[in-house]
């Protein structure tokens, strides 16, 4: 069972929810946590895993054998990303533009193009005190997150509970992290920014046909548009976490809520039970 924790807006509490849920469930069943926020992975700060293995994230980029190349220009013509330029006397490859689709090497009439791995990041895994922990991290200066996310996702062991910490936003890295999950929790906060981005996140998750529910973080105050929207859209709010400077301080020290305030573990276990119930009943929030 794969549960993704996403948000649209950054900083609403995805990491808090993902790590606390994993922490609370680990004594009851096998739990795996995949940190797919490969641009800024933070779960390791809270769960302090002992990393035992790692593998490089590589994009297969073209390598041109100038001996064989006749400068026919086909590779440059078919490359959708302008990652190859063919000049009269040589070929220039721009590896940072290459998506690694493999079309150029396959289609080269002279078989002059081979592929070589270009390292763009790393996937690491290990044990975090009973949690099976996996994270990806792209190298500073790299633009492309999806290949690293795909490689983290490949390590998912769907026999147990898999919790995915999703990057913020609504574009390709988010889709890559969420797709194929059985359920998506959207963490938001009761502010105009939180609400605006929640609506976008709901549209994204519905596009992927994944049942969803909301966690309302930093609740309290006078702004109620999130609750009104959820009611109207028939989206369950499964957990409400109050605005509390004590919680913010625990978080600031790199301690997850379920560890720093053990009495909250019950709350996360209930959250999990609610998700199970929704999935068992097949009543998710797929209604449009």
């Amino acid at each position, binding site marked *: 069972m794969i549960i993704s924790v996403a948000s649209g807006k950054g900083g609403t509490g995805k990491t808090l929810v993902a790590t606390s849920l994993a922490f609370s469930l680990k004594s009851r069943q096998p739990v795996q946590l995949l940190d797919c926020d490969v*641009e800024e992975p933070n779960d390791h700060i809270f769960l302090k895993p002992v990393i035992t293995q790692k593998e490089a994230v590589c994009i297969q980029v073209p390598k041109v054998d100038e001996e064989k190349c006749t400068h026919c220009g086909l590779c440059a013509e078919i490359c959708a990303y302008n990652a190859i330029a063919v000049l009269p006397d040589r070929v220039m490859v721009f590896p940072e533009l290459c998506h690694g689709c493999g*079309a150029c090497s396959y289609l080269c009439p002279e078989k002059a193009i081979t592929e070589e791995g270009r390292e763009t990041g790393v996937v690491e895994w290990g044990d975090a005190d009973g949690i099976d922990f996996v994270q990806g991290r792209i190298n500073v200066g790299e633009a492309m997150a999806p290949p690293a996310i795909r490689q983290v996702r490949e390590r998912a062991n769907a026999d147990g509970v898999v919790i995915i910490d999703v990057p913020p*936003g609504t574009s*390709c890295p988010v889709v890559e992290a969420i*797709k194929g999950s059985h359920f998506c929790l959207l963490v938001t906060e009761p502010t105009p920014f939180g609400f605006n981005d929640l609506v976008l996140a709901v549209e994204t998750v519905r596009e992927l046909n994944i049942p969803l529910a909301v966690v309302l973080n930093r609740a309290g105050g006078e702004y109620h548009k999130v609750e009104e929207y959820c009611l109207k859209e028939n989206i369950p709010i499964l957990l409400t976490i109050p605005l509390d400077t004590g919680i913010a301080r625990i978080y600031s020290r*790199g301690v997850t809520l379920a560890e720093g305030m053990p009495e909250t573990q019950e709350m996360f276990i209930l959250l999990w039970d609610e998700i199970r119930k929704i999935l068992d009943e097949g009543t998710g929030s797929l209604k449009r």
Partner: protein
Amino acid sequence: MKELVVLSGKGGTGKTSIVGSLAALAEDKILADCDVDAADLHLLLEPVVRQKNEFWSGQVAVIDGEKCTQCGLCEELCHFEAIKDFTVDPVSCEGCGFCCHICPVEAITMKENLSGHWFISDTRYGPLVHARLGIAQENSGKLVALVRQQAREMAEKQGAAFIISDGPPGIGCPVTSSLSGASLALLVTEPTLSGIHDLERVIGVCRHFGVPALVCINKHDINEENSRRIEDYCREQGIEVAARIPFDNIVTEAMVKSLPVVQYDSDSPVSRQIKRLWQNIAGRLSAN
């Protein structure tokens, strides 16, 4: 003309709230929202759209079921696992066109993809260029580049002194697209271990692109010890900490009223810090 881009690494540290206030404080500038997949700046600036444009970018493969002989070659060769059961999953398709080139019966065509929209708007603080990436779309980096290009053209035409851009979270493709070639990056961080970790990575990206950086610690009093760590780290790195903004619910109150905090309560400690920050930035931008 000088271009300031506001980044953070970690989401939710207060980029947009600060940009909203800088918009109110700065004169003679063009505003740009480079967070194209979860944009929020418009919620503070209440833009009136003057011009709406389509953003066509990339392609998606489409298989003609009539012509397809179900040979399976496309599925076998696709590097993005976007083809299953002789249909293309448009969300997974990266538009490389490999399948279209190799289909033995020419059953696959590439269709242009409407990926989003971009806008030129008027706000009470001057013109704003902003965009909306379609749900679950790719190419956010290209859309960011387009927003910046439009902002630059407008700034040149109007002889504006500054461009102020609200950047996206993370360090990946939309961030590198927002940052490259900018005059100065303002990095908004918070004194949490996650905030510090992510700040270090985004400083690395600024260095990679040779863009000078300035740091602002938001909610500095949530954890004074971590705030000191950030200051020590920045000193080591030779980066100035230009503002220390206290935690204050007034920022959310202003947001609910759709106002930058410096307009909502210009004498609050938060507003005083942001005003000093802008003086510092304007001085730096005018000096070099």
